[in-house]
């Protein structure tokens, strides 16, 4: 193996002393996340998360066929409008209900280049209808997710 140039100083920035010189500035806007519950139990989980303080996350429930969403305050809004400016969408399912809505939302996200994640909250079961309802439409899926996984995911991604 050959070295193609002089040793640069950047490698030494890995020391504790040099790491202290990393410049400090506020990070840009948080992710613009939408969270959608696909059944009644999932809605309880989503509602609890919605009561926390978030940067730009918005929370909904959905039923088949999924072209509209229901906000946590009960207002019906069109799916397409709520996906504008979004870059991440999280689907939450406990039972696999409303699989058509999952498909509609997943297709809309795919068309818009929106990252999708899924939480199959199935209390200890490693498989089930929730898994198969979410799998085709989510880039990453947690199985079985716990109640607080939604909160952890949103917080970790600065939602």
């Amino acid at each position: 193996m050959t070295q193609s140039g002089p040793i640069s100083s950047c490698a030494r920035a890995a020391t504790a002393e040099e790491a202290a010189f990393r410049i400090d500035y506020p990070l840009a806007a948080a992710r613009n996340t939408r969270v959608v519950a696909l059944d009644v139990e999932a809605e309880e989980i989503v509602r609890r998360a919605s009561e926390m303080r978030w940067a730009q996350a918005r929370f909904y429930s959905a039923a088949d066929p999924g072209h509209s969403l229901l906000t946590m305050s009960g207002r019906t809004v069109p799916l397409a409008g709520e996906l504008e400016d979004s870059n991440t969408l999280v689907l939450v399912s406990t039972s696999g209900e409303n699989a058509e809505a999952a498909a509609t939302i997943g297709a809309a996200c795919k068309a818009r280049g929106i990252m999708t994640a899924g939480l199959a909250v199935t209390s200890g079961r490693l498989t089930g209808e929730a898994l198969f309802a979410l799998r085709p439409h989510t880039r990453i899926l947690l199985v079985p997710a716990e109640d607080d996984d939604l909160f952890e995911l949103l917080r970790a991604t600065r939602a």
Partner: protein
Amino acid sequence: MLRTEINELLTQTGPGTPMGDLFRRYWQPVLLAEELSANDGPPVRVKVLSERLIAFRDSEGRYGLMDEFCAHRGVSLWFGRNEEGGLRCPYHGWKYDYTGQAIEVPSEPETSNFCANVKLKSYPLVRRGDVLWAYLGDPARQPPLPEWEFVTVPEGQAYTSKRLQECNWLQALEGGIDSSHVSFLHSGSLDSDPLFKGSRGNAYNKGDLKPFFEVVDYEGGLLIGARRNAEEGHYYWRVTPWVLPNFTMVPPRGDHPVHGHFWVPIDDENCWAWSFDYHPTRRLTETEVAAMRAGMGVHSANDENYRPLANRDNDYLMDREAQRRGETYSGIKGIALQDSSLQESMGPIVDRTKERLVATDAGIIKARQKLRKAALALAEGVEPVGNRPQDQKVRSVAIVLPADQSFVEGIGEAMIAKPGVPQTTV
């Protein structure tokens, strides 16, 4: 993103810290057996979980691991004489047996019982496979000996190495959990590395650069399944197990040996990256072992202190021309150094308050959550997982399954290590 206090909780493993207490409930690899290869051989300094220790092998082949410093005046026992059943401090001749018990204090009268009251803090050190394992926790809570398959296969079927990684253990571990970087950072190695190339699975890897992920919470930790398109109606799955707190395995490729890692904290700013290869049903070939010794696959070429020859002092021997030619993606040669160069570049303990995670980092997010919960639960008296034999008899898996099948159901018992049974691989 993690809050500062959670980052500190997860990254600090010294005595009395929550994560340090968690680590002290597991046998950890601390030395290669080759480092204490002969009775009465030279003692070896060991720093693990921010404790400075000395290891030696006495005249009868018993392994000792104890406080590095003589109880008398604090001299490092690395300078000691290992002879006649104990390690003797060269300063005034105090001598300790493999349990840390003082057995001679020459300045005392021959009939004195002073020795009986002098004992260095010591820990059990046992050999399993080619590795010496230490348990630094409460003796009353000592778990069964390690049952990882790579240390239980017959002689000649495994090869283990270690290398110094100059950063906190957690950012090294997170690299082992984060399957999504493989398609980029290690993309040049699938065709060139003798321990990776030639498997049918590689074609699936290269044919689908945007895998989907399923993170499955199971008793010992997590199973991270990366799925790619295979033949019509089928997915190619690569399943990586993570067992708490610091064990990962890489999914196999063809009949190549299976590999994996431990990430063991030295202190909060350094760790040992342990790398192993084994085959469940056959001896490793001379060619394979030669490649491993040369630093290929998951191993690295190191100096006599197990520090990689390519390290941050020489910019990891960055080769921009190889990068331009496409031989390596990052310009760094070798999978191990490709990982460690980037992980060390984050700084000794990365500031996770500044990171920008994305949804595909859910495996890392979940692992952090499980580590935090396990550490906090232990403080409340809840026993951790991962230190039981059933947690450790685990395998990574590569498999093609029908698209409508759960990968956990599909792999079935393929993820359970069974003597003499081949790995499930593509």
